[in-house]
């Protein structure tokens, strides 16, 4: 707190900043901030609120002109909205980033070994580390992947790990996104915008750059192309211009210098994939697909889908094309499997997890159930079954009757539930209608895996713009912040 008070006394912009009892990314940290971070604080503190608002308006106008939008589907039509962007950056120190980076790399390594195992020998199931039914009965488990070898053993080429920080500033994994994580385009665009419209804030700071992402991703996708192709053609497969993430697809295709294709641009002949060009059919070797498994190939999955490519899975199984991410990776980012991730890491790597999960109690296990029942009023209980998503209990907000009702459900079907303590997410100063206020943030670092795993320095910091809200999703009024990683 004293740290915060000093900063507040120092200055204008933060004079009214009232940090509740949370870890604050900028003003209320547990450590002695490095000079770079202190510099950002001081410079921000000297900003006049009116000037900051002027810059924010300029940023928004620029995003609008650029059409950097996501699509919100209302009843009648799709509306393009600009993702709200906060001009006060979130800053990570070099040691913090080092920890996150190593933790993410470790997690990706474990996830890839796990996926290979469950589609081949299934050692982890035989050894009873994770219940077989949880994996084999999982809706995302894909029979077409059984026994198939993917280049380099890489299933998850692009991974987004959702992290939060607790009251002590510890990073905790909230969720893995091993299917088609999105948001990386905002990281790069937001940085461009910050450097252009807030140049005085970043000037002279040693920030880790983010513009390597496109070339790194391209290289990784070329590295995992089928063997024997000298100069692989990589493409990005998008559902098309009406998809909510279309802007990101365009952005990534441009950053990589590759064609952005839709299903109708591709065709499969004799088990090989081609794209239709003005010069005729041209071979395609590696596909960064931003299309869910179900839509990839109407011959194998949803027969009504027009988005995919008939025969694509056959070409994939024959080893003639690489899909990134592989099919069937959804097993690894499932809520129920998440609970086992620390054990999965220990099992395959014989290492302790660098990034820990939010403390999770597996009700399928007797001690997990007992703990959950005894502490229900302090816990969030989540259903993990295939139909998961609803039936969440937030203990501290529940009535006695609701708690009692839930105890009944837990006893009736314990395997369907996990429980976690309520996390006090960290906050970051954010420009709000009433001034600069504390808002909760999370962090999604992006990892790219070809022959090795590279993590984009920083990642997407999402911010819950509503006061007190813990929901950072863009569809629910969340915004983004630029994430700065100090190089030293």
């Amino acid at each position, binding site marked *: 707190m004293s740290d915060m008070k000093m900063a507040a006394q120092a200055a204008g912009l933060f004079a009214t900043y009232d940090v509740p009892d949370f870890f604050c990314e900028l003003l209320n940290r547990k450590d002695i901030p490095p000079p770079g971070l202190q510099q950002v604080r001081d410079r921000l503190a000297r900003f006049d609120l009116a000037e900051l608002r002027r810059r924010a308006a300029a940023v928004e106008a620029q995003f609008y*002109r*650029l*059409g950097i939008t996501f699509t919100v589907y209302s009843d009648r039509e799709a509306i393009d909205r600009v993702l709200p962007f906060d001009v006060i950056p979130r800053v990570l120190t070099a040691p913090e980033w080092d920890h996150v980076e190593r933790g993410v790399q470790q997690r990706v390594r474990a996830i890839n070994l796990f996926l290979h195992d469950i589609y081949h020998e299934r050692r982890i199931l035989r050894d009873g580390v994770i219940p077989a039914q949880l994996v084999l009965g999982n809706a995302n488990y894909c029979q077409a992947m059984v026994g198939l070898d993917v280049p380099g053993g890489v299933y998850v080429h692009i991974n987004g790990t959702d992290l939060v920080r607790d009251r002590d500033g510890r990073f905790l994994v909230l969720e893995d996104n091993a299917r088609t994580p999105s948001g990386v385009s905002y990281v790069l665009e937001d940085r461009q915008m910050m450097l252009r419209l807030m140049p005085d804030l970043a000037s002279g700071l040693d920030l880790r750059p983010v513009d390597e992402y496109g070339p790194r991703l*391209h290289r990784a996708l070329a590295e995992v192309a089928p063997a024997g192709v000298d100069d692989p053609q*990589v493409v990005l497969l998008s559902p098309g*211009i009406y998809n909510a993430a*279309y*802007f990101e697809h*365009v952005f990534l*295709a*441009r950053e*990589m*210098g*590759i*064609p*952005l*294709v*839709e299903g*109708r*641009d591709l*065709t499969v*002949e*004799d088990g090989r994939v*081609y*794209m*239709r*060009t*003005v*010069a*005729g*059919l*041209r071979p395609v070797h590696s596909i960064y697909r931003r299309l869910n498994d179900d839509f990839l190939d109407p011959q194998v999955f949803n027969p009504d889908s027009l988005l995919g490519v008939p025969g694509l899975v056959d070409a994939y199984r024959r080893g003639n094309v690489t899909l990134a991410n592989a099919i069937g990776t959804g097993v690894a980012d499932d809520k129920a499997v998440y609970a086992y991730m620390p054990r999965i890491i220990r099992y395959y790597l014989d290492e302790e997890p660098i990034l820990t999960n939010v403390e999770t109690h597996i009700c399928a296990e007797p001690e997990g159930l007992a703990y959950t029942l005894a502490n229900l009023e302090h816990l969030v209980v989540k259903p993990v079954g295939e139909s998961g998503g609803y039936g969440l209990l937030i203990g501290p907000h529940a009535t006695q009757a609701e708690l009692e009702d839930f105890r009944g459900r837990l006893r009736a079907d314990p395997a369907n539930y996990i429980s976690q303590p309520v996390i006090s997410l960290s906050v970051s100063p954010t420009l709000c209608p009433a001034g600069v206020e504390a808002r909760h943030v999370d962090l999604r670092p992006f990892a790219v895996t070809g022959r090795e795993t590279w993590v984009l320095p920083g990642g997407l910091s999402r911010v819950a713009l509503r006061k007190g809200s813990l929901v950072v999703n863009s569809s629910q009024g969340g915004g983004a912040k630029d994430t700065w990683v100090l190089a030293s």
Partner: protein
Amino acid sequence: MTQVSVFPTPVLPGLRNLLSRYAESTMWLARYMERIENMARLIEVTGTSVHASNLDAGWDSVIRINADEDTFFLRHKVATERTVVGFYITDPDNPDSIVSMARCVRENARVLRPLISTEMWMHLNMFTRWAMDLGPDDVGAGYLSTLCTRLKQDCQTHFGITEGTLYRDQAWLFYLLGKNLERADQITRLIDIKYHTLLPSGEGVGSDIDMSQWTSVLRSAAAYHAFRRVLPEGMTPANIVGFLLKNDGFPRSLSTSLRCVYSVLGSLAGEYRLRHCGPILERVEELRVTLAEQTVEDIILRGLHEYMDWIQRELRLIQNEIAGAFWPPVAVQAVSGG
């Protein structure tokens, strides 16, 4: 210093081959922008050249130039300024209205977003958002000229930005194809409608009303001052038709548009080794030869309308052949490719 190659590599390493869908979208983006500009020009000229005594006279010519008699009169009883302007600017159900065309431009621009320059996209993004939102309040009699001026300016800004920033590869060539095919089409429509339907019965060729209509045609084609420069004394129908069809210096003449189409197809065949260009080149060349070999007097004598009609049919065939060669229907290509 870097060495300047005599034959610079004409393609990006990652985008050696232009997707068929991109080529199609590029062509239509250019066509729609050209069409919007032409529509704005036509409406503005019609609005300023109608008789002071009857503000609603002359508006039916806009419908006839666009061959929209059927669809228009299904919706409106008479062609007045209000009904015609509404139909061609703000009617979202008319595919030829400016709001509809702006929507098409936007969709094509979104498809082409990976290919076009940021400057192009920013301008198209803002322009199409504005144009798609045009409503009855924006097209009142007092604002019509201002609105048309803004539309024309936005189109010309687009063409300027494109000329200055679009990477010169196959996509650029398909863009030029679309723009020039559209120009060729528009100029023949404009001449055709004037020559055969505008002149009220009882008025002779060369009368005052005839000449003022020819002046409007020139203005609609942005050719008035250029024509004056070249033929200051020769304001005759034959001279005007000749200028619009055959003048090689005027950027919107038929001969200039066809020359550009021809050279673009030649580049696609030569620099980019695209097969299938041969028959289309031949068709364009035949058009150019017949145009060059005949005098305007010959053309008028044999029937200007029939000639314009033939040219328009040929332009449609060229468009179809381009589509068949470069973005063939999926089933056909699946058989022939491989």
